[in-house]
């Protein structure tokens, strides 16, 4: 990626003793209570946990949407843990492709404009932006519909657009937050298959979910409970303890 040095030998994600502590009145809430793990390039990891387990906090930190109270977070070898707002924005823009549960497409922009957004913020010139966005839409099979508005699409299609948007910037990490949470089982399967295909093509994917059956689609599972990791291992081992 332009502007960001990537040392291929290093793990893509490295969390060292991450704490995220919120003050709720008099009470101290430890949303992340000493979390450490590494994720290498090409992995497909599911972070699983119940609501309130601290998985969203982890997702925010991994996604450079938030910084930890203490601990270090290296993304592609860069220390993200004490970056400013604008530096985080740049990291998100260049290194992370988000896929949200609610798709989070902008309703007043057409598909192409939606997919172009990360490229726009990266300062890609208009012509190249359009070409790359169209190519990205093509990957999810929606190139023909580029002029449509998000509201004209089904939920599954909208999620594919959001995947296209995540892919457009050619990020090092694809971060999916409950990607199937708003979809029926058939379209969920489509999306999961697509994520698997992306992983087979070499993309690193981190998927946050509360649903064990979804987590089983990944290659590695990290389970969070009360802000701590209580399982980290291969999906087969995870299946064994369920």
């Amino acid at each position, binding site marked *: 990626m332009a502007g960001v040095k990537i040392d291929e030998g290093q793990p893509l994600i490295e969390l060292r003793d991450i704490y995220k502590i919120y003050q709720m009145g008099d009470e101290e809430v430890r949303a992340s209570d000493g979390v450490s793990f590494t994720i290498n390039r090409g992995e497909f990891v599911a972070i699983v946990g119940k609501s309130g387990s601290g998985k969203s906090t982890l997702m*925010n930190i991994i*996604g450079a*949407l*938030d910084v930890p109270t203490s601990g270090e977070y290296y993304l592609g070898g860069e220390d993200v843990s004490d970056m400013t*707002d*604008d530096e985080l*924005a*740049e990291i*998100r*823009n*260049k290194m992370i492709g*988000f896929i*949200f549960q609610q798709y*989070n*497409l*902008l309703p*007043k922009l057409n598909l192409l404009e939606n997919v172009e*957004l*990360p490229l*726009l*913020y*990266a300062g890609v010139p208009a012509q190249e932006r359009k070409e790359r966005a169209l190519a990205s839409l093509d990957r999810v099979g929606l190139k023909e519909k580029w002029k449509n508005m998000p509201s004209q699409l089904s939920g599954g299609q909208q999620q594919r657009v959001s995947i296209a*948007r995540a892919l457009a*910037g050619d990020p090092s990490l694809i971060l999916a937050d409950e990607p199937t949470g708003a979809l029926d089982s058939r379209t969920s399967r489509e999306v999961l298959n697509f994520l698997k295909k992306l992983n087979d093509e070499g993309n690193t994917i981190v998927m946050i979910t509360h649903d064990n059956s979804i987590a089983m689609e990944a290659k590695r599972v990290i389970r969070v409970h009360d802000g701590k990791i209580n399982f980290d291992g291969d999906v087969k081992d995870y299946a064994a303890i369920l």
Partner: protein
Amino acid sequence: MLQSFKLALKSIWSNKMRSFLTMLGIIIGVASVIILVSIVNGYMSTVVESFASMGVNRISVRLTNLSTRSVNVDDMYEFYDEHTDLFAQLSPNVSLNAVLKKGEDSLDMSSVGGYSEQYLDIMGYELEAGRNISYADIVARNKICVIGYYVASQLFGSPQAALDQTIKVNGYAFTVVGVAERQDEEDLEEGGTDDFLWMPYSIATKLSRSADITSYTFATIDTDDTSTCKELLEEYLYEVYKDDDLYNVTANSEMLDSLNEQIGMMSAMLGGIAGISLLVAGVGVMNIMLVSVTERTREIGIRKSLGAKRGTIMQQFVIEAAVTSSIGGIIGIVLGAVVTQLAGNMIGITATPTPAAVLVSFSVSVGIGLIFGYMPANRAAKLNPIDALRSE
């Protein structure tokens, strides 16, 4: 940057009603600034024009002659002859309290006075019939007179009929040699501009039983020279009197200046009031932008998660506010120009929007967008992407 403008226009267009209501304040504000300032300016130039026709080139001199220090008619004419490059005309003024009589008819409100042969030019009057007072009349102290249109029509029925007739002024018989053109087209009344009798000043001093002439009227060649002329006169009179309480020199243009000043003040005051409405409009813009930021929290969150920096979000909202208020400003200018023309025609003055008023109100409206858009934009830029994404 260009992208931000496109985005702003898109956003304004997709919220047509709201954008229009936001603009409405700006439109009314800008239009009222333009209308008020232009109409006051138009009115001012009309007043100035009518004032100019009343003789802004005139300078009045009043004297108090003492036995040891005095200026008489000959001295004044000597001064005048020395400065013919600056002064066009000179006339002594000898006012009389007189009753005009012709047989049984009499007029007692008429302004009666003695003047030089140049007084007609000073006043800018033309003759309807007959001739003007001549230099010979003054030298010979002839009992002749030039009368106003009202006097002629009251005492003789018409200007032509008045010629060579006799009017008794305080018992002395004067021959009418000329009748001035009617001055007041609307009212012809007793004591009005057409109710006068002019006689040679030499005979007037005789009637007033005083050879002392204490009032003079000068006319300058060029209106721009009036202040120079006034100073020249004051210098000359100070030489003689050594006391500036003994004479008084007044230029009509000074009255015009003070009138201009007053109108300028009125214009600034009205402009200020209209300016306040622009300020209120600015608060309206801010209000709507704040609503817009709140409404679009999620959009802001999405944009931030995709890598929009604070500055980018800031720029988007500030530009949107500025574009909204400049569109309002342009509509306001057009509306203001149209209404100014209509209103000008209605009250019968030529009122055109001044470039200054247009420029100022347009830049004020853009400025309002920038200033009042800043606060909401800053709020948008500082939104935390996590919270923003979570909002519905």
